């Protein structure tokens, strides 16, 4: 009751303040919105926990409520202005994800992880691709496309369907304090697939570019560049990881803040370097901040003795980061897009979920996992967020004539998965017996 009272007071204060003439202070609205999101996220997260739902579902709901489509405390522009917090959070969570991957523990689960990844990749991308081809009539922007062009768009949908959300997975795992073989496999699959999907997407978009230009022939030269980008990303991540391990060992003070700064710098420098090379040398080189940060976290955990201190420092400040990230994600959920495309979005989300359940079950069986794990495994892989959206925006950049319509559908599917995924994952962790929270 107190939580609801506090939430109502927060909303009342916000509503009252924003109805008055705004002052001259620069950055006031951003500070105010950040405070509002943190406090209401905390309150509603608690409330959700009372209903046995993941807190991040509460954070998402808060964002949705405060965002442009319901209460309107944040406009689309405000959400964009706060985008840097989003990027910071994604890379920070990637650091955490890398740090959670312990080679010693993963070794035992490696077979399961690899088999499930292969199974999910083939089944999910294949099924979603096939569904899009068959349900082409629900996608008006493909009306004038030839058969092969429709297939290329379907492949893009199929590829994005493979993407997961490491941030949601880590947040739910942390909240449930889950530890054990099921959790390790779920986390391992989620993190590796997020890297894998970037490679798959690069191949898919190249295929799409080739078939959209009638005279074009298939060009796979991008694979060389992609390989170089991956090696560069891993090397940069390894160097940063060693640096962080050194700092943790020798200085340690303010480590949490240093990690936040590192996440922010990696994001900014990666994008900045890409832009710089493109502008000055017409060179396309995309360093993937996620890959760099996952590698950095992994290096600290597995190639130094500072892993536990590192994870401790990450956890000390992770809650505000999660709350801001997920509330902003909620505010960014495009309800208009969902309204316009709910038919195809629901269909794709349902097909994706079914394919994931089947693939996870089959993968688990093939690798010899216990049946009670296999029955619930699919529930751990429904979450979807950040990376898929980022990749979808690349489609807009490359294909401005139909990219917007494509993204609208992708965003709507993500909105559904984002709301359903964390709830399913929490249930899976509890049913696996590895969560330390009450069912």
């Amino acid at each position, binding site marked *: 009751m*107190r939580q609801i009272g506090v939430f109502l007071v927060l909303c009342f204060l916000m509503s009252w303040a924003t109805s008055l003439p705004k002052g001259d202070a620069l950055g006031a609205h951003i500070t105010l919105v950040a405070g*509002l*999101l943190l*406090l209401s996220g905390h309150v509603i997260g608690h409330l959700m926990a009372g209903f046995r739902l993941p807190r991040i579902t509460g954070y998402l709901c808060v964002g949705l409520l405060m965002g442009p489509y319901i209460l309107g405390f944040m406009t689309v522009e405000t959400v964009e202005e706060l985008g840097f917090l989003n990027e910071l959070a994604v890379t920070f969570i990637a650091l955490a994800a890398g740090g959670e991957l312990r080679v010693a523990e993963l070794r035992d689960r490696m077979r399961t992880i690899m088999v499930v990844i292969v199974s999910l990749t083939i089944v999910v991308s294949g099924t979603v691709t096939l569904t899009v081809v068959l349900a082409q009539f629900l996608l008006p922007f493909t009306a004038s496309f030839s058969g092969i062009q429709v297939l290329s768009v379907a492949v893009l949908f199929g590829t994005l369907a493979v993407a997961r959300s490491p941030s949601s997975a880590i947040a739910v795992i942390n909240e449930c304090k889950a530890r054990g073989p099921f959790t390790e496999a779920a986390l391992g699959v989620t993190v590796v697939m997020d890297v894998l999907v970037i490679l798959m997407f690069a191949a898919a978009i190249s295929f799409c570019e080739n078939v959209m230009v009638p005279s074009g022939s298939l060009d796979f030269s991008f694979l060389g560049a992609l390989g170089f980008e991956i090696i560069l990303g891993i090397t940069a991540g390894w160097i940063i990881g060693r640096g962080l391990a050194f700092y943790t060992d020798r200085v340690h003070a303010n480590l949490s803040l240093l990690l936040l700064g590192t996440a*922010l710098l990696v994001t900014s420098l990666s994008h900045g370097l890409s832009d710089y090379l493109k502008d000055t040398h017409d060179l396309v080189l995309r360093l993937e901040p996620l890959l760099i940060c996952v590698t950095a976290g992994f290096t600290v955990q597995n190639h130094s003795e500072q892993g536990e201190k590192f994870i401790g420092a990450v956890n000390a400040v992770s809650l*505000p980061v999660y709350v801001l990230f997920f509330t902003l994600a909620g505010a960014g959920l495009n309800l208009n897009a969902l309204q316009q495309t709910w038919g195809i979005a629901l269909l794709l989300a349902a097909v994706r979920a079914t394919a994931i359940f089947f693939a996870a079950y089959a993968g688990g069986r093939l690798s010899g996992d216990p049946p009670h794990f296999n029955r619930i495994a699919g529930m751990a892989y429904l979450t979807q967020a950040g990376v898929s959206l980022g990749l979808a925006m690349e489609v807009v950049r490359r294909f401005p004539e139909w990219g917007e319509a494509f993204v609208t559908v992708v965003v709507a599917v993500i909105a559904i998965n984002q709301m359903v995924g964390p709830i399913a994952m929490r249930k899976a962790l509890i049913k696996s017996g590895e969560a330390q929270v009450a069912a």
Partner: protein
Amino acid sequence: MKLVVVAALVAVIALLGSRISFTRIKLPLGLANLHLIGTEYVLVGLFLGSTFLNLLDTPTLEALFPILGLGLSWIGMLFGVQFELRRLTHIPVTVIAITLLQAIVTMTAVALPFYFLFESLFDYQTEIALIGALSLAAAASDTGQSGIALIARNVPTRARPTLRLLQNISHMDGLVGVIAFGLISCAGSLHNESPAYIWIGVSLGLGLAVGLLIAALTATRLNNEEMLLVVIGGVAFGGGLALYLNLSPLLVNLIAGVVVANVGRARARSGIREVLLTGERSIYILFLILVGAGWQIGSFWTVLFVLVYLVSRSLGKLLGGYFSVSMLPPESGFPRLLGMGLLSHGGIAIAIVVNLHQIHRSELTDLVISIVLIGMLASQLVSPMLTRRLLEGKP
């Protein structure tokens, strides 16, 4: 990208600086005092700013304004949570009276000449000139603790009561400045000419509401991560509301902090204080760097204004101390030149003028910041020597 790289650079300086600053090192007394309050970071900021390297140029600084806002709000809340009424009742009424009197006299001594100067030399409206002069006066009223702390170890036993009095005054008189500035920020000319009393009520109401919200949220047992979340959220929400309405986040969060300190549960109070203190140094350094970067030193005339400021502030402190001690019975034994021990400048002064810059950006504000910064550097250099002379009984 420049914004992030520069922000990261500033953050690294602040993080590493928080490890080595605010410590006693072997330097002449005046320089040690400058180091103790982190003056070097103002110079680092000045070096990074548009005056020299231009790394922290105006657009970059403006993009970092939310950090300044958060810093002000943090300082306000931290200041507020220290005012627990249960503990304040242990402080003798005379000490509180002396604190108030010397602060008010100092404010008057600084506000009068500057109001005259601002109105006669510049073309400002009466109310804007008054806002500038009163803001300067509010900043001047604050006494720094560093100058007193530096010499506290070597004070003769007979001067211990005076030392304690100086320490108590320097702990509390920032409150006068913050409240005074909070009231100034309610002036009609900063709010489309609407009556000031409405905004005073709004400031009080917001502080009360935010304080009660934080107290309610921390009434249940929270772990460290949740406490951090609630404190950052509360600080940002209270400060954000104040800034959004062109009010003082220092005052609104100070009130919120006082409410938390007196209404919140004991466990929550200590948890909140701990979180606020953990970030204090880094935020303060960040603050000093950004202030330094935005510092427009101004023309030769600034030096004259600084001289007027130093003279009027010193006069105010000396007169305030003199009047206060004169009202006490002779056996109290406090020296009549008590003001000599109150010349050190505190960090709250910088916070006040930065707050002015946030809600009213003009040439006058730049001048006020410059006067306070240079005045502060000068005060820090001489104040420990004067305090020592006072306590050794040879003024």
